[in-house]
């Protein structure tokens, strides 16, 4: 091995070690920032090393690409609202996929054997479906397109045909790499498949989809690494792939559903059986809610996607401070699938300066729920639905939920009585100890703050 090559390869080893150590430091909130920094240094080392490659004779293309990409990336990172993080991550997944597709296609010129051709097909395929799938996910998250599940008759048949066509063109491509028709077919079909795979998945299932696409973007990089014979792409790509798969598993478990059920069933179309719910809805005014809250010594707040929509995280923090000043203990209960991506609520509350040791996971808050005086549900629905425990015919039966109904009093902040995304009735609203505080979450909390402060 000549010396430049040796230096490059050694730099990749250093870079891989930095990625791994960076991810290790991400295991605790106290060291996570340092971990991210280490990981970025690893990336810098890898890029500088790659630029040393003697094969590179023209730098203007690379410089142009880096300038354009760097400017867009930096602007996006500075400007994005924390409530829009799911959209941003979805878009970035897509860019990663597209980059791998392009690398795969560009590597075709140097491909010599069938193994390389197979890996080229894989990087194009995974990259392509990650790209369009992520664009659809982004559209659904940002409500650019409807966030509901799109189902039509014969959908499974159409998808199966697409998969068969992909397999056929992939095989033909490997057999006749000099015929560009098969290459275009693989590209076109993988782009189409990404669209078809994500349209039947509804908004509330987005945490699963984003995690899965995150994993795919890593696997696409991995396949591109095989195509251009590069170790660091394989190592980094598979780390990302593993991370996405783990998050996908956690999300599925938190919804008590299998991955195939999420991907193929279209949750939104489930029609629940008419179940008789006993009891009546008891609305409460802000003033009355204040009297109950003032006497509470232990309060639990359970946020959901509605808090993000109402941008209510800052007023929630204000409410928390006022309650603590009055001597109450305030905790947050975070369900794994609250929001539109893993950890969505935690980031929003961190933005509002809520310390992370106040954010309890579902399994930590549930045992304490019986000692809680007031549980405040803000914009969450399915994740606090007791039907998951009690009603066997419910589509969410078996899903682990936060048991707010064991608290002495439950306030549910809700815009209206329309049912949640899944269209499932929530018996919580009819329970003896539940009071409904109707209206915009931000305004309702603002009202409570005025009462408490005044």
């Amino acid at each position, binding site marked *: 091995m000549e010396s430049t090559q040796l230096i490059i390869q050694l730099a990749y080893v250093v870079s891989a070690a930095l*990625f*791994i150590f*960076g*991810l*290790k430091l*991400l295991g605790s909130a106290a060291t*996570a920032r340092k971990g991210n*920094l280490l990981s970025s240094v690893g*990336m810098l080392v*890898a*890029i500088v090393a790659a630029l040393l*490659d003697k094969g590179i*004779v*023209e730098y203007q*293309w690379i410089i142009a690409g880096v300038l*354009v990409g760097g400017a*867009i*990336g930096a602007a*996006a*990172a500075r400007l994005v609202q924390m409530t829009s*993080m799911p959209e941003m*991550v979805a878009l970035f997944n897509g*860019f*990663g996929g597209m*980059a*791998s597709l*392009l*690398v795969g*296609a*560009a590597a075709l*010129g140097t491909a010599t054997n069938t193994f390389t051709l197979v890996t080229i097909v894989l990087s194009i395929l995974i990259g392509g479906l990650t790209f369009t799938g992520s664009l659809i996910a982004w559209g659904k998250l940002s409500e650019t397109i409807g966030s509901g599940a799109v189902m039509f008759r014969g959908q499974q048949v159409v998808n199966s045909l697409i998969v068969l066509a992909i397999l056929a063109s992939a095989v033909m491509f490997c057999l006749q790499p000099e015929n560009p028709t098969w290459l275009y077919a693989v590209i076109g079909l993988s782009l189409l498949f990404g669209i078809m795979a994500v349209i039947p998945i509804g908004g509330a299932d987005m945490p699963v989809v984003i*995690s899965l696409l995150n994993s795919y973007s*890593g696997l*696409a*990089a991995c396949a*591109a690494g*095989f195509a*251009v*014979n*590069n170790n660091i*792409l*394989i190592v980094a*790509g*598979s*780390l990302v*792939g*593993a*991370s*996405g*798969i*783990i*998050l996908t598993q956690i999300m599925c478990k938190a919804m008590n559903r299998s991955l195939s059920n999420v991907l193929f069933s279209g949750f939104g179309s489930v029609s629940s059986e008419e179940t008789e719910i006993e009891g009546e809805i008891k609305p409460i005014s802000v003033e009355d809610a204040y009297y109950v809250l003032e006497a509470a010594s232990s309060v639990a707040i359970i946020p959901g996607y509605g808090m993000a929509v109402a941008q209510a995280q800052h007023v929630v923090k204000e409410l928390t401070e006022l309650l603590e000043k009055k001597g109450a203990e305030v905790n947050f209960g975070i369900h794994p699938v609250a929001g539109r*991506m893993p*950890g*969505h609520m*935690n980031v929003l509350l*961190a*933005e509002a300066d809520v310390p*992370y040791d106040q*954010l309890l996971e579902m399994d930590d808050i549930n045992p304490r729920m019986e000692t809680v005086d007031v549980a405040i549900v803000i914009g969450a629905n399915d994740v606090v639905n007791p039907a998951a425990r009690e009603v066997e015919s419910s589509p969410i039966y078996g899903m682990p939920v936060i048991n707010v109904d064991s608290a002495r009093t439950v306030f549910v902040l809700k815009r209206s009585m329309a049912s949640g995304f899944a269209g499932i009735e929530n018996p919580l609203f009819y329970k003896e100890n539940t009071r409904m505080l109707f209206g915009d979450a931000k305004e309702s909390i603002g009202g409570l703050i005025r009462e408490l402060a005044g």
Partner: protein
Amino acid sequence: MEAVFLTFILMLSIFLGFELINKVPATLHTPLMSGANAISGITVVGAVSLAGTGQHDLANWLGAGAVALATINVVGGYLVTDRMLAMFKKKGG
């Protein structure tokens, strides 16, 4: 042999990835994902070697496009992750 060697690396990194990521607390799952976004921008390394070979225009264009897209991931991913992680504070800290 090259293919076997690369597959070996793949296998080990996937297992290592599972071990590492399993230890990340739920609080940090969003920064984990955006950080993973940044790492998946590693494709930029493959892209630079293709963008600058000067062989033919198409490879240059594809390479430059890939460099741009992957750089968005790298720069955007690391910056936004840092921005998020800076907000995570301990009580009283």
